[in-house]
C-alpha cells in the first residue's frame, strides 16, 4: 500500500453542499440508510437513538413572521483532518478503531476493532457518530435487500458515514481492471450525492482541479461548520444568506464572520 | 502493547509510553519475585528469630 501510490498526488475526498438548493426532503438520509445497511428499530421516535449517518437539520433565523426564514442543512460525517491528520475522534480512540487515511482524507471506522467505549462520540462536536445500542433486527425478507458491499454492525460498536468507502474500493477495482491509472470523478460518488433531487450535494476530490468540488469550495459564499475549532472539515456549505453562514460557527456578540 | 504488534512504530510516543509501562511492570515483577524467592529461602532457613505474629 505504501508504494503503489507514491507517484500519485494524495486525494482529499470531500463535499460541497449548496444550502440554497436543499429542500430538506431527506432523500439523502434515506439513500444513505439503504446503501449502508443502517439498522432501525420498530419505534424510531427517540431521535437521540436513531442512527442517521446523514442527518438533515432544520435551521431558522429565529425571527417572527414575516421575516422568518428556514434553511435545511444536511450533515454527513465531516471527515475532519484537524491539524495534520489529527481528527478530534481519531486522536482519542484507544484501540485504533478509527483512522485518518492521508491518501484519501477519509476517516474510517473499523467495526471489528471497536469495543464501544464511545470516547469518539464524546469528541465529535457534529454528533456524526452513532452507537449501536441494539442489535440490528431486519424485518422479514429485508436481508435480501441489504447491500452486500457493506458489513452490518452488531450492537456495542460505533458507526458513522464513510463517504461510501465501499464505492471507492469498487471504483479502484474497476479502474485497475480497465487499465486506468486514476478513478474518474463520476466513478466514485456517494449515495446521498446521487439521491439528491435538487443536485445540492457535489462530491469529489477537493485537491483535483478537474473536479467540480474544487471550484465550488472556492465560492466566496462557502463556509464550513465550526471552523474556529480547528477541525478542518471536508464538507463545505454554500449559502447566499448571511444568517446561515453565521449559523455555521459560534461568534461572540460583537464578532462578525469573515465572509 | 508489544513490538511485534503491527501498530507498533519505534517513534518517540511509543518509546516513552511503552517504555514507562514496561519499566513499571518490570519493577513490580522483580519486586514480587524477590519477595517470593526470599520467603521460600527464609522458610528453608527456619524462622531465624521471627516467631509467629508481630
Amino acid at each position, binding site marked *: 500500500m505504501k508504494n503503489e501510490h507514491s507517484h500519485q498526488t494524495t486525494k482529499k475526498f470531500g463535499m460541497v453542499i449548496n444550502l440554497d438548493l436543499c429542500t430538506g426532503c431527506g432523500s439523502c438520509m434515506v439513500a444513505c440508510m439503504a446503501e449502508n445497511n443502517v439498522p432501525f428499530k420498530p419505534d424510531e421516535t427517540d431521535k437521540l437513538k436513531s442512527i442517521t449517518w446523514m442527518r438533515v*437539520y432544520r435551521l431558522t433565523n429565529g425571527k417572527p413572521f414575516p421575516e422568518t426564514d428556514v434553511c435545511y442543512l444536511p450533515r454527513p460525517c465531516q471527515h475532519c483532518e484537524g491539524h495534520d491528520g489529527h481528527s478530534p475522534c481519531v486522536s482519542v480512540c484507544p484501540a485504533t478503531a478509527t483512522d485518518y487515511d492521508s491518501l484519501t482524507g477519509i476517516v474510517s471506522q473499523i467495526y471489528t476493532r471497536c469495543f464501544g467505549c464511545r470516547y469518539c462520540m464524546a469528541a465529535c462536536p457534529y454528533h456524526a457518530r452513532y452507537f449501536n445500542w441494539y442489535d440490528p433486527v431486519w424485518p422479514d425478507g429485508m436481508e435480501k435487500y441489504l447491500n452486500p458491499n457493506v458489513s452490518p454492525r452488531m450492537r456495542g460498536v460505533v458507526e458513522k458515514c464513510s463517504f461510501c468507502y465501499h464505492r471507492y474500493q469498487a471504483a479502484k477495482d474497476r479502474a485497475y481492471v480497465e487499465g486506468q491509472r486514476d478513478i474518474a470523478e463520476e466513478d466514485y460518488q456517494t449515495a446521498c450525492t446521487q439521491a439528491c433531487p435538487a443536485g445540492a450535494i457535489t462530491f469529489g476530490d477537493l485537491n483535483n482541479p478537474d473536479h467540480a468540488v474544487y471550484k465550488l469550495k472556492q465560492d466566496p459564499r462557502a463556509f464550513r461548520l465550526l471552523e474556529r475549532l480547528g477541525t478542518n472539515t471536508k464538507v463545505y456549505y454554500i449559502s447566499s444568506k448571511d444568517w446561515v453562514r453565521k449559523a455555521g460557527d459560534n461568534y461572540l456578540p460583537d464578532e462578525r464572520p469573515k465572509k | *502493547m508489544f513490538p511485534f504488534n503491527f501498530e507498533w512504530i519505534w517513534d518517540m510516543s511509543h518509546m516513552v509510553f511503552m517504555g514507562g509501562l514496561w519499566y513499571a511492570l518490570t519493577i513490580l515483577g522483580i*519486586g514480587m519475585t524477590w519477595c517470593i524467592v526470599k520467603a521460600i529461602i527464609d522458610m528453608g532457613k527456619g524462622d531465624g528469630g521471627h516467631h509467629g505474629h508481630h
Partner: protein
Amino acid sequence: MIDAALIPIGVKRCSFGKFLLGLAAVGAVLLWGVYAMLLCWFKGLNQTNMNDYYGFALWIWADLAVIALGGGAFFSGFLKYLTGKDELKNIINYAVLIGFICYSSALLILAIDVGQPLRSWFIFWHANVHSMLTEVAFCLSCYFGVLTIEFIPLILENRQLNKISFFHHLAHNMHEIMAVFAATGAFLSFFHQGSLGGVSGVLFGRPFAYREGLFIWPWTFFLFTWSAAAYGPCFTLMITKITELISGKKLVKDNVIELLAKISGWMMATYIVAKIIDTIYWATVTAPSKGFLVSDFYTNNAFYGFWILIAEILLGGVVPALILITPAGRKNPTARNTAIVLAVIGVCINRWVMVLQTMAAPVMTFDKWALYYPSWQEVATTVLPVAYGAILIMICYRYLPIFPQEPELNPID
C-alpha cells in the same frame, strides 16, 4: 464464636450471627446490582438511558469519581513511604483497602460500560498511544496490580494465615520493600489520575471541556492529579469515620486524623487556587477564542446553571480547604467532618461537570442542550460496587488487623 480463631488478637467483634445478618442485608443490594449488570451484559446498553448525545453518562462519572476518591491510597502511601510521615502507618492499611475497592469498582464499571466487553483486551493489544483513554487503561490496570500487592500482606497478616511460614515470610518481605511498590504506585497514579483529566481536556471539539496546557497535557491533567491527591485522603477519612460510627469504636488516634486532614487541606487550598486561575483563563481566553461566552455554558437549559460552578469551587473547594488548614477547624470534629463531606461532594461535582456537562452543552449553533437521567439499571450497577465495598470492608474489618491502634484505643477487660 465460630470464627473466633480468625479474629485478630486484642480486638472484639460482634457475634457471628449478627455479622452474617449484616452481610445478608448488604448482599441483597449487591444481588440487585448483579441482576442489573447481567441485564446490561446480555441485553446490551439499551438497558441504560444513554443515547447518542450522552455516550458518557452516569458510569463514566462514577468511574472518575471513584478513582479520584481512591486517590487517598496512592497519596497516603507516598506520604508514609516516600516523605517519612510515619504516623500514617496507622491509617495506611485502610487507605489501601479503600483504594483497592475503588479501583476494582472502576474496572468493574468499565467492563459493564463498554459496548463489547469481550473485546476489552483490544485497548492493550491494539493500543493507540496518543489516546488519553489508553493511558488511563494501562496505568489503572497496573496500579490495581500495585494495590493488590499492597493489600496482600494485610491479608497474610490474618491470625491463622500468618501461622503458615511461607505467608509469614512473604508478608514480612513485602513490607520491607513496600516503599518500592508505593513509589511505583505514585508514579502510575500521577499518570492515570492526570490522564483522566486529559480525557476531557484534549477534546478540542468541545469548548466546554477543552483546555490549553503544557506540551501534550491539557491543564486538566495536572488539576485532576492534584485534586485526587487532595480530596482522596478526605474520602479515606470519611470512610474511617463511618466505620467508627458503625462499629462504635475509635479506630485511629486524633493526631493521625488531624495530620492527614491538614495535608489534605493544604493540597486542597493550593489546588483550588490553581483551579480558579484555570477557570478564569478558560472563561476569558480559551472559550471566547472558539466563539463562546462562559454564560453560554450555564444558561438556557433546565439544569446547568452558575450554581454548579459555585458549588464545585466555593462549597466543594474553598470552604473545606479553609476549615482544614486552620488548627481550630481540624480539631473540631463537627467542622472537620463537615469539611470532609463537602470535599467529597466537591470532587464528585467536578468529575460530573467535566463529563456530563460536556456532553450536555451544544457546540453547533443549531444544536440543543441534551439532558439525561440514569435508568434504574445504571443506578443499580453504580450501587453494586458500593455494596461490594461494604461487604469487603465488613469481612476485612472482622478478620484482618487493619487498624494498629485499635487494641490500644479499645482495651478488652
